C-alpha cells in the first residue's frame, strides 16, 4: 500500500469518526487546508517530471475528490443530527391552551331584525325609521284612533309632558306612526318596513314595558289583500325556514286597517313542545290589513287612487319562536350567560344568498 492509499484511508476514517461539525472541520483542514496533508503532497509535486507530475496529480485529485465527498456526506449527517437535537430541545407543550380571545355576540333582536331586512329587501322594501317619543297625532289620531276610541285602551300608553305647542307626547305604542311619517314625507308608491322600539305600560310574564315591533307598509294602485297574504306567506316561510308553513288569516279589528286580519302560523303543541309547520294547530303572530282610507286621507294621499296594506309584528315573539327562547323578560336583562348563549357570532350576517341562519 503506497503512502497515498494509507493517507486516504486515514482521512476517510477520521471523517467518518468526527463526532461533530467542529471535529469534521478539523479533519477537513488537516486534509485540504493550506497546510493540509493533501495540499502538502500537491506542493511536493514540483520536483517531479512532467509525466510523473501528471500521474501523481491525477491520483492526488482523485483522493482529494473522494475525501471532499466523504466530508460533505459526513457534514450532512452531522448537521441533521445537530438540528434534530436542537428541535428536540425546543419542544413545547402544545396541549397548553391558546392565548385567550374573548368572542362577542350580537343580540338576538338585532340579528332577527337583520334577517327580516334581508327578506323584505329582496321583495323591494326599504327600511324607514321614526322617533321613540311620538306625538299623539302620529301614534293615534292619524291612524284613525280618535281620543275617545276604545282602541286607545288596548294600548297601555306611556305619556310624557306636552310639547311646547301643547301637543300630547307619548312613547310610541307601536311602529305604526312610521307609516304616517312615511306617507306624509313622500309620494306613493311606497314599500317600507320599520323596525324599532315600542312601549306599553304592561309588565308580566308575557309583557315588558319596552319591546320591538316591525311595521310594513305597501301602497300602490292595485295592491290588494291577496298581495298581503302572499307577502306574509313568503316572509314567514323564509323567516322560519319551514317550506310548507301554513298561514291562517282571521278577520280582526284595527282602527287603521279595513279589512283587518290577524295571522296565525301552523304549529303543533303535542307533548307540551311547540313545533312550527303544517300540524293542524295555530299560533297567532301578527296583525295586518288594508290601509284604512281615512289613514290615507289623513296623510294627504288620494284614497280613490291609492290603496295598500300594512302589518305589524312583535320581534321578540317571532325571535322566541324561531330560536326557542323561552322567556320574553330575559331579552332585556343583559345577563352575560344569556347573551353568550342566545347571541349570534358577529360574522354571521344574515343574507338570502348565503342563508338566513347558519
Amino acid at each position: 500500500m503506497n503512502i497515498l492509499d494509507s493517507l486516504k484511508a486515514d482521512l476517510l476514517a477520521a471523517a467518518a469518526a468526527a463526532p461533530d461539525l467542529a471535529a469534521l472541520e478539523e479533519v477537513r483542514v488537516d486534509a485540504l487546508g493550506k497546510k493540509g496533508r493533501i495540499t502538502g503532497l500537491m506542493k511536493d509535486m514540483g520536483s517531479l517530471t512532467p509525466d510523473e507530475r501528471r500521474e501523481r496529480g491525477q491520483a492526488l485529485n482523485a483522493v482529494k475528490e473522494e475525501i471532499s465527498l466523504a466530508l460533505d456526506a459526513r457534514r450532512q449527517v452531522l448537521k441533521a443530527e445537530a438540528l434534530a437535537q436542537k428541535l428536540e430541545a425546543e419542544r413545547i407543550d402544545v396541549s397548553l391552551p391558546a392565548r385567550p380571545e374573548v368572542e362577542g355576540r350580537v343580540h338576538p333582536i338585532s340579528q332577527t331584525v337583520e334577517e327580516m331586512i334581508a327578506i323584505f329587501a329582496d321583495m323591494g322594501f326599504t327600511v324607514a325609521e321614526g322617533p321613540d317619543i311620538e306625538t299623539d297625532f302620529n301614534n293615534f289620531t292619524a291612524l284613525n284612533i280618535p281620543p275617545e276610541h276604545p282602541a286607545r285602551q288596548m294600548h297601555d300608553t306611556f305619556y310624557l309632558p306636552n310639547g311646547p305647542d301643547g301637543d300630547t307626547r307619548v312613547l310610541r305604542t307601536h311602529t305604526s306612526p312610521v307609516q304616517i311619517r312615511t306617507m306624509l314625507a313622500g309620494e306613493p308608491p311606497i314599500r317600507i318596513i320599520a323596525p324599532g322600539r315600542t312601549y306599553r305600560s304592561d309588565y308580566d310574564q308575557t309583557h315588558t314595558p319596552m319591546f320591538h315591533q316591525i311595521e310594513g307598509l305597501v301602497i300602490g294602485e292595485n295592491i290588494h289583500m291577496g298581495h298581503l297574504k302572499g307577502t306574509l306567506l313568503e316572509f314567514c316561510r323564509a323567516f322560519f325556514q319551514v317550506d310548507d308553513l301554513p298561514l291562517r288569516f282571521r278577520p280582526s279589528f284595527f282602527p287603521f286597517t279595513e279589512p283587518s286580519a290577524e295571522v296565525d302560523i301552523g304549529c303543533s303543541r303535542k307533548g307540551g313542545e311547540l313545533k312550527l309547520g303544517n300540524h293542524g294547530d295555530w299560533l297567532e303572530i301578527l296583525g295586518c290589513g288594508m290601509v284604512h282610507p281615512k289613514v290615507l286621507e289623513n296623510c294627504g294621499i288620494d284614497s280613490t287612487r291609492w290603496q295598500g296594506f300594512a302589518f305589524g309584528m312583535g320581534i321578540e315573539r317571532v325571535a322566541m319562536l324561531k330560536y326557542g327562547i323561552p322567556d320574553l323578560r330575559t331579552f332585556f336583562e343583559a345577563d352575560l350567560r344569556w347573551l353568550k348563549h342566545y347571541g349570534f357570532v358577529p360574522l354571521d350576517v344574515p343574507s338570502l344568498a348565503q342563508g338566513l341562519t347558519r
Partner: protein
Amino acid sequence: MKFTLSWLKQHLETDAPLDVITDKLTSLGLEVEGVEDTGKALAPFVIAKVLSAEKHPNADKLRVAMVDTGTGGPIQVVCGAPNCRAGITVVFASPGAVIPATGDTLKVGAIRGVESRGMLCSERELNLSDEHNGIIELPEEAPVGASFAAWRKLDDAVIEISLTPDRVDCAGVHGIARDLAAADVGTLRPLNTAPVPGVFPAPVKVALETAACPQFAARVVRGVRNGPSPQWLQDKLTAVGLRPISALVDITNLMTMDQVRPLHVFDAAKVRGDLTVRDSKAGETLLALNGKEYTLPAGLAVIADASGAVLSLGGVMGGESTGVSETTTDVIIEAALFEPAKVAEAGRALQIDSDARYRFERGVDPATVVSGIEQATRLVLELCGGEAGEVFVAGAEPAWRRPLTLRPARVAHLGGVDVPEADQLRILTALGFETSRKDGLIHAVPPSWRADVQGEADLVEEVLRIHGFDAIPTTSLPRDEGLPKVAVTPKQRRTATVRRLLAGRGMLEAITWSFLAPETAKLFGGAPEELALLNPISADLAIMRPSVLANLAAAAGRNAARGYADLALFEVGPAFRDGSEKGQDLVAAGVRAGLAVARHWAKGTRPVDAYDAKADAIAALEAAGAPTANLVVSTDAPGWYHPGRSGCLRLGPTVLARFGELHPAVLEALDLTGPLVAFEVFLDVIPQPKKKGGTEKPKLELSAFQPISRDFAFVVEAEVEADRLVRAAKGADKALITGVQLFDVYQGPGVETGFKSIALSVTLQPVDKTLTDVEIEAVAAKVVAAVTKATGAVLRG
C-alpha cells in the same frame, strides 16, 4: 264573551256540530279562545239514592251510607256531609272519576278503617257553585242511575270568544247567531219584541238634562215577587260565569248577555218622584251595587230622583239605595242609551268595570230602547208576576241610518277575490243591511247595531269576512323590473357595521330599557322634566335615559353579583336630550369591567383601563367611516367620567365620542366596584364620507425607495399631553414623514421629577430618490425643532 252551545241554539236553528261552529266563529273574526265541554267533565257523575246512613264506628262526624246507583247492589260510601241521610237523592261518583273542582281521581279507600267505594258530591266539588255545606239533594223524581249532567241539562259546551272592540253587536248571543246564520251555519230565530200593553198610565216620568243620554225609557211594574230565578236562568248565568242573584237582577243580566241590551231595575218604593238624567256635580256620592262608595267628579251622566239624590251611574252601575230585594213589589225598569265616550269616562274615572259599561262604551244598538223594555217587561211578568204600566219614553231614538254604496268590483280590487254580486247582496242582507241595486251599485244601509260600518271599505270587509279570508288567493307582490334597490340608508348600514365590529372586539350586545330611575339619570347628567313619564310603570323606569351607559353599568353590576365580574357589554340604542323629535340620539355605548386580560399561563393579567375604552371608541368610529386621523382628544368628558382618566374625541368642535373610567362616585352610587371603563359613540353626528360619484379608490402611489425610521427621546414636562408631541413631529415635514409611533413613556430615575421621557419613532418615506445622510439629519433637526417649539420638550441627552 262566554256563552253555551245550548244558549246559542235558542237563537240559531242548526244541526252543525260543535267543532264546525267554533271553526266558523274564528273564521268570522269571533276568535274562539276556549271551548269547555262541561258535559265531558260531568259525565262520570250519576244520580243515586241513599238507602241508609249510619254513624261511622270510629268518627263522630262521618257517616257510612249504602247507596243505590241503579246498577247492581248497594255501594258503601263514607260521607262527611251533615245532610247525608237515608232517603235523599244525591249525585254519586264512582272510583276513577275525576273531581272537577280538584282534578283528583277518586280511588277506593278506607276512611278511619271503613271502606268507601265512591263519593257523594257537593255543588262546589262539581264546580257548579260555591256551595259546600252539604251534598247536593236532588228532587225525589230524579231518575236513579241516570246521568246527572243530562238530567240537569248541563251536558253543554261553554264557548269563550274574544271580541274586537268594533263588534259590540256580538257581545250578546243573538248577534253571534246572526253572524253564523249569514255564514250559512243555520237559520236565525227571530226575537219576540212585541209590545206588552200597559194597564195603567206611567206614574214615573223622566227628564233628560244631559246630552250624554239621548233616550231613556222607564216602565213601572207593580206587584212583582222577587225570589230566586228559575233553574234554567240560573244555570245559564252560572255557565257563563255570572252569579245568580234574584229574578229581577238575573233578567237584566240575561238581557245584557243575550241582547246586548243592558237594563236597570229600581225598587220603585225607594225612588222619590220622577227621574232626572243629568250631569253629576263634583262631590256627589253614590253607594254602588258593588258595595263601594264613590265620590263623583262633575260631568258624569247620573240618574237622580225628586230628592236630588244620585240613584245610579248611567250605563255603568246602579246604586244600593234603590236596588231591588226579596221584599220588592213595585219596580221601575230602565232601558236607556248613553254616549259611549261619557260611559268610558265614568268607568275610567271611578275604575268600575261592568258588563253594562263594556257594552255602552262600545256603543249599544240605538234602536233597542223601546224593544228592549218590552222584552224585559215580558220576562218580568213571566218570572215575577205583576202588572205593567205604560212605557214613558224621554228623548228620541238617535238617527242611525247611513246609506252607503258598494261598487261590486271593489271587492275584487281591494280584497283580491271575486265574489259574485249576488253573493255580496245576499251576505249584506243576511247581516241585517237594507240592500238594493241601482246604477250598478249596491246600496246598503247598515243595521242599527253596526255603528262600526262607516264606508265602502267596511262593506268590502263584511263581504270578505263572511265569504272567508281563506278564499282570497295568495298573490306575490309585483316585483320591479331588475334587481331590488338598496334597502338601508348609509346611516343604517354603518350602524349595523359598528354593532358587528364591537361584537367582533369581544363585546356582548345588550338591549336595556330606554328609561331608568330619575336618581340614576342624575348621575349621568340628568334628564329634563319633559322626559319624565307621567304614568311610569315603576320608579325604576320613570324617565327617559340621558345616556345609554347607566343601564349598561347597572347590568355589569348585576353580572358581577352573579359571579361574572369580567365582562364587556355594549348597546346601540337611543339616548334622549329632550322630548322633541330631534331630541333623540343614536349612540353606540359600551362598558368593560374587571380584567381586560383573563388569567392565563402565557402572560400577566391586567385590569381594564381607559385606553381599552379609547380603542373601542376609535374602532367604532373607524367602522362608521369617521376620519379618525383628524380626531383630536380633549380632556373635558362630562362628570360621570373620572376627571383625570377620560377624554372626548372631537372633529373640530363636534364631539364624536367620549371614553374613560367611570367616576368613582357614580360607581359607588350604582353600588358597583371598579374598575369600569366606558365609551359613548354618537352615530348621528359622524360625517358621511363624501362620495365623489364613482366607487374607485384613490390611486395607489408606491415609492421605489425603502422607508427609514429614526428614533427620538424627548424630555418634557409631565402634564404635557403626549399627543401634542406626536402632532408636532408629524407636522415637521409633511412631504417626507409618513408616520410617527409613540413607543415609550418613562418617568423615574434619570428623568427629573415633574418631567417624563417620551420616545417617538418617525418614519420617513423618500419619494423620488434615496435620502442622503445630510438630508436625513436635516429632517431630524426639523422634528426636534418642531416638537420643542410646540411643547417645550428637549431631546434627551
